[in-house]
């Protein structure tokens, strides 16, 4: 801001007065605090005991415990106190924690495989979408392609379809191809959804790289592919990274396809989390623990992406 020049006009809208600023700041901070409270409540619930989590009135101050996290990662069976007394002393702190509730750890829960599915499907589809998207975006950006606008619209329109409606024929097709409830099936599906975003975003990023660099490289005797690899890609690396994070976030968060097309083997976290149940309904501390672990990477990515967020959510239409 070239503030010095404008500040001389006392009540210019361009540079707000200190009082207006303080007022605006106060309201925004109030909104931010209210908006973040639900998230903080979930993070706190993860550290509550089962009874604190469902206490009335809701507890703000409580004794923190890792029970929620232990419950998330284990399957437990209830035993009689006599039986527990006869057992050899607990080997680990979490064994001890569970025994205090008259329970014994029977084995690991399904959360780790689900988390691994989320990672494999997320990274797999992101890699494929960004790879295909970079090639297509480069072609759309640099070459005259017949019906380019129609093709681009077609690519975007596939993302506009309601996922439940798309899932009906996919379900039938995957049944024929034995792709139901497989990671490969989910990777292909998420790639198809993500590739539309990748093409649109990357086309914007590549459009911004001056053609002169490549032209110079071509004159110097590079082939097109060499120029792409050695000149364009290094310039587009930030854009590619931002696009990749957007794709990853989509696959990570996706629910509709996951819940309709997977049931076990390839199930990801979003359809799994609501069904973490304890004795008598949802095990809220464990659900909150899973939610916290699930959301932390997203929060980090949001901070990383801050500069490119606007582009990503508008398919590259608004660039700031």
């Amino acid at each position, binding site marked *: 801001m070239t503030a010095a020049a404008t500040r001389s006009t006392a009540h210019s809208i361009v540079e707000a007065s200190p009082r207006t600023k303080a007022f605006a700041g106060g309201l925004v901070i109030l909104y931010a605090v209210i908006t973040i409270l639900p998230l903080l*409540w979930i993070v706190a619930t993860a550290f509550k005991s089962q009874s604190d989590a469902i206490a009335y009135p809701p507890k703000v101050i409580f004794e923190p415990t890792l029970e929620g996290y232990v419950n998330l990662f284990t399957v437990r069976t209830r035993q009689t106190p006599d039986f527990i007394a006869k057992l050899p002393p607990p080997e680990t702190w979490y064994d001890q924690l569970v025994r205090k509730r008259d329970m014994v750890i029977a084995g690991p829960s399904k959360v780790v495989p689900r988390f691994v599915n989320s990672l494999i499907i997320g990274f797999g589809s992101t890699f494929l979408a960004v790879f295909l998207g970079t090639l297509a975006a480069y072609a759309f950006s640099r070459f005259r392609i017949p019906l380019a606008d129609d093709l681009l619209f077609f690519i*975007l329109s596939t993302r*506009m379809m309601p996922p439940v409606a798309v899932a009906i024929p996919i379900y039938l*097709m995957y049944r024929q191809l034995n792709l139901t409830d497989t990671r490969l099936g989910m990777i*292909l599906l998420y790639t198809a959804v993500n590739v539309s975003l990748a093409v649109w975003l990357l086309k914007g990023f590549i459009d911004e790289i001056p053609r002169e660099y490549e032209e110079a490289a071509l004159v110097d005797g590079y082939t*097109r592919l060499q120029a792409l690899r050695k000149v364009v890609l290094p310039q587009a690396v930030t854009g590619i990274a931002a696009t990749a994070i957007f794709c990853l976030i989509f696959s990570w968060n996706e629910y509709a396809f996951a*819940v309709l097309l997977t049931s076990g083997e390839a199930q990801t976290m979003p359809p799994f989390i609501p069904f973490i149940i304890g004795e008598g309904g949802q095990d809220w501390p464990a659900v909150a623990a899973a939610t916290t672990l699930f959301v932390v990477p997203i929060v980090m990515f*949001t901070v990383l992406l801050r500069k490119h967020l606007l582009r990503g959510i508008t398919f590259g239409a608004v660039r700031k």
Partner: protein
Amino acid sequence: MTTISQPDHATMPGVSTPAKSRDARRVRGLSDRTIAWLFVAPTIALLLAINIFPLIWMIRLSFTSLNLSMSYLPLRFVGLDNFRDILNDEDVWFRLQTTAQFVISSVALQVVVGFGLALLINRQFRGHSFWTTIILLPMMLSPAVVGNFWTLLLQPQIGPFNYLISLFTGVPPSSFSMTGQVSLAPWTIVLVDTWMWAPYVMLICLAGLRSIPDYIYEAAEVDRASAWRQFWSITLPMTVPFLMLAVLFRAIENFKMFDMVNLLTSGGPGSTTELVSISLKRAAFEKWRTGYSSALAIILFVTVFGAANIYVKTLNKVKQR
């Protein structure tokens, strides 16, 4: 790379003239047309396989009475019966009405909150960037996970939401249920959706506000236009294209809404929050009426496709600015 050398066009590297280098480019490696085709084809092929082929299959199924729970029955073509049934079904119209109400009220609320926030943040107070990032967090989360944890927050007895309301209004916290009451549930999904997506409108509006050059305001100052006047004649009209973009995108997304509402109320109580997508999921994946739900899906496709068309046109208009 394979180099096809042709004696006529043999050029000495480094000393090629512009005219010659163009020839050289065609000779070395693949031609531009081949590359363009090779680069675009895989994406188009994937979309044809995963989107278009199934879509065509679904169009075929929409003319049949296929029911997957009775798939031993031979495939019977029923012509336009499914479409006729849907358009004559009062329930479907009721779901569409519920969806329209949800879309209109949530988008309207998001525009008010989002635009308001953008105006405030545009005052550039200290630390605005940090607080903006905090405000943006909800829209990055998984809608399903959001819907799930809001059910805890909105539990009549143990949830903090009712408790806070009772602190301010004195209404006993267990006397109302945000997700379980016919009068409140439609507003609950609007509330949670706004919590999640008002930041989206805010971010786009903020870009709109920042695109307005300072000198316009300075000119208005010289003309002694009041702040109110400046808002109505400069700020609002110049932000409208951005606002339109946000509204269209949100409207399309909310028309498709499934995940968040499915976990928050799963269409209930009764069917007060049963949006079209939830209804479609029940027909297709619980009642297994594949023929019927294919027809309904096609009707939704056509609707969204029409809206998407307008959307892309608006995108291009905004881009040209």
